[in-house]
């Protein structure tokens, strides 16, 4: 027990170190973009007809602390992020990033984790049954749908659905809220309205993830089912669901749990594109906007750190679940 707590502590420390390294890399990448925040903002003002001098830029740099050395700025930023959870002000929008993201973080994480849940809730039972099923029609259907999920890019799928809903329902399914709830405070009705719209991006994001997870579960199950311990269990008179879930299914789920972190990563990468197509006002679309259009590195960096932190957290949790589930992993880790 003490060893297990020790293991959790070590994993937690490792996760934090990972996050520190990632945030340092993110900060450095923000710095690598040509021009600093002061120049970009002033240049942005310039396009709006203001006349800017070098002095203005230097004054702005001093105000933002950009005249300080690189490492000091990096550690100040990382310190603010880690110890106070403050991402500072956005470079171009000149708004507090925490304020800007507060709602959108939860929308994005909600949709991504929704998609992740959907994919595993579908993939695990279907994958397991399709591995043991002898019904060729069901098997081929599952295989066809999952290959389609693997082959069809999310953006294309999203476009097709947008086209379909606009043509047949007149109203497009884009956006996360109906008009009347868009700026309303959170309430039960707003939540239901959110669900009534969010299922579509969740489905789009979840489909590819489901297809991928399904193939993984199926392959692992097929591998496990031929193992001697399953035959030995059958030889002891165990059969049906008792056999299936306790023996091959349980033993094939380790690598599946391990892959949850990767899947979340993949969903995050697709989120901005899907969000853009479906005009969702959430974090993913902001990321695209910050990276590609407004060149708002402060905002982009904040979003990247949040996404990474989520993945690191999920990996931390799956590591613990894995150790709880598999005595061999426990033995390897705890000695």
């Amino acid at each position: 027990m003490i060893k297990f707590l020790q293991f959790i502590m070590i994993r937690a420390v490792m996760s934090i170190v990972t996050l520190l390294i990632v945030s340092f890399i993110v900060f450095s990448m923000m710095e690598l973009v040509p021009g600093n925040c002061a120049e970009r903002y002033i240049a942005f003002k310039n396009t709006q007809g203001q006349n800017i001098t070098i002095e203005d830029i230097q004054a702005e740099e001093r105000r933002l602390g950009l005249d300080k050395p690189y490492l000091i700025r990096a550690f100040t930023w990382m310190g603010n992020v880690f110890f106070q959870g403050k991402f500072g002000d956005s470079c171009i929008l000149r708004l507090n990033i925490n304020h800007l993201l507060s709602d959108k973080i939860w929308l994005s994480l909600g949709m991504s984790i929704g998609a992740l849940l959907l994919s595993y809730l579908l993939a695990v039972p279907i994958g397991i049954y399709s591995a043991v099923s002898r019904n060729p029609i069901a098997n081929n259907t599952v295989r066809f749908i999952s290959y389609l999920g693997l082959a069809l890019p999310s953006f294309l799928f999203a476009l097709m659905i947008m086209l379909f809903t606009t043509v047949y329902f007149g109203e497009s399914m884009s956006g996360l809220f109906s008009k009347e709830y868009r700026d309303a405070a959170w309430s039960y009705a707003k939540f239901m309205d959110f669900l009534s719209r969010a299922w579509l991006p969740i489905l789009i994001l979840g489909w590819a993830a489901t297809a991928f997870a399904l193939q993984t579960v199926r392959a692992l199950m097929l591998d496990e089912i031929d193992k001697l311990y399953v035959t030995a269990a059958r030889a002891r008179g165990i059969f049906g669901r008792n056999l299936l879930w306790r023996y091959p299914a349980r033993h094939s789920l380790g690598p599946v749990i391990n892959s949850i972190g990767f899947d979340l990563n993949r969903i995050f990468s697709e989120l901005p594109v899907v969000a853009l197509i479906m005009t969702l006002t959430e974090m993913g679309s902001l990321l695209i906007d910050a990276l590609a259009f407004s060149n708002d590195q402060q905002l982009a960096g904040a979003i990247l750190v949040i996404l990474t932190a989520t993945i690191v957290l999920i990996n931390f949790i799956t590591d613990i679940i894995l150790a709880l589930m598999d005595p061999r992993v426990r033995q390897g880790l705890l000695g």
Partner: protein
Amino acid sequence: MSLLSVENLEVLFNTDDGVITAVDKIGFELEEGEVLGLVGESGSGKSVTAKSLMQLNPLNTFYGKNSSIRLKLGVGELDVLRLKSSKELVVVRGGAISMIFQEPMASFAPAITIGSQMVEQLMIHTSLSRSAAQELSIEMLQRVGISEADKRFHQYAFELSGGMRQRAMIAMALSTKPKILIADEPTTALDVTIQAQVLDLMKDLIQEFGMAILFITHDLGVIAQVADRVAVMYLGRIVESGPVKQVLHSPAHPYTRSLLNSLPKLDALDEPLTPIPGDIPSPLERPPGCVFHTRCPEAIAGKCSSEIPISVNVEPGHQSACFLNESPVEKTA
């Protein structure tokens, strides 16, 4: 009637390359308390035969129309091959027949404790309560010579040594008091010293539990130690069978002779070994006539490659299926 009588057992596999005959119309009997050794090279069909007794072969397996595996249960009997569902097979699997395998490590589920697997089996086959099943399991572990049995009960297979695992496997197999134990190369994966210990243990347990054993191995030395009777298999057929001393001392079939000759002899270590020439043919290309004629040093040209030899008595209870045995003795029914 015998405890187990196998008649005309034909086991076929449906594969992409066509139908493969793994076992070709064999028959044998097993009496109560008897140890029957089943010997043969890999691919001779001995494991498939054993698995047929519990219908454990893969899904693409089917059995010949006239095949029967009759098992005496109490006053009645049943034909294992007539049982359709896994539910019906429970009386056989782990009930009347238990099986231990070559790889004790691989035959325990890696993430379930040994005790949990033992109790699970007892809950299926007996009316014991969970705690009584646990007690019996620990008792069985002690009986097979596992120290600190109550601690081992809560451990996983990977935490035990190889010999200990096979002992635990034997304890689990015997805990339901089966009438027949199938031992599929139970000592092959063990060190020679451990092998001897496990064999001694098995001999003790045969006495104590009074069950019949079908002992599968390719090791004639092991057979000589444990078996009462032996059946030699080659490419899905039993080529010779009989009391173990008679078969090993005066082998009647050329295949049995070759098998014995290919063993190293401790009193003549410098003599070269005489391997059986060639490889066992692929089951897809089963030779016509006598299945051994392609490798047989004594094959009769023209005859062995076209006619199938019938099993004949060479001594009382000692049978061989070879044309060379046919002339002086009467044919069996």
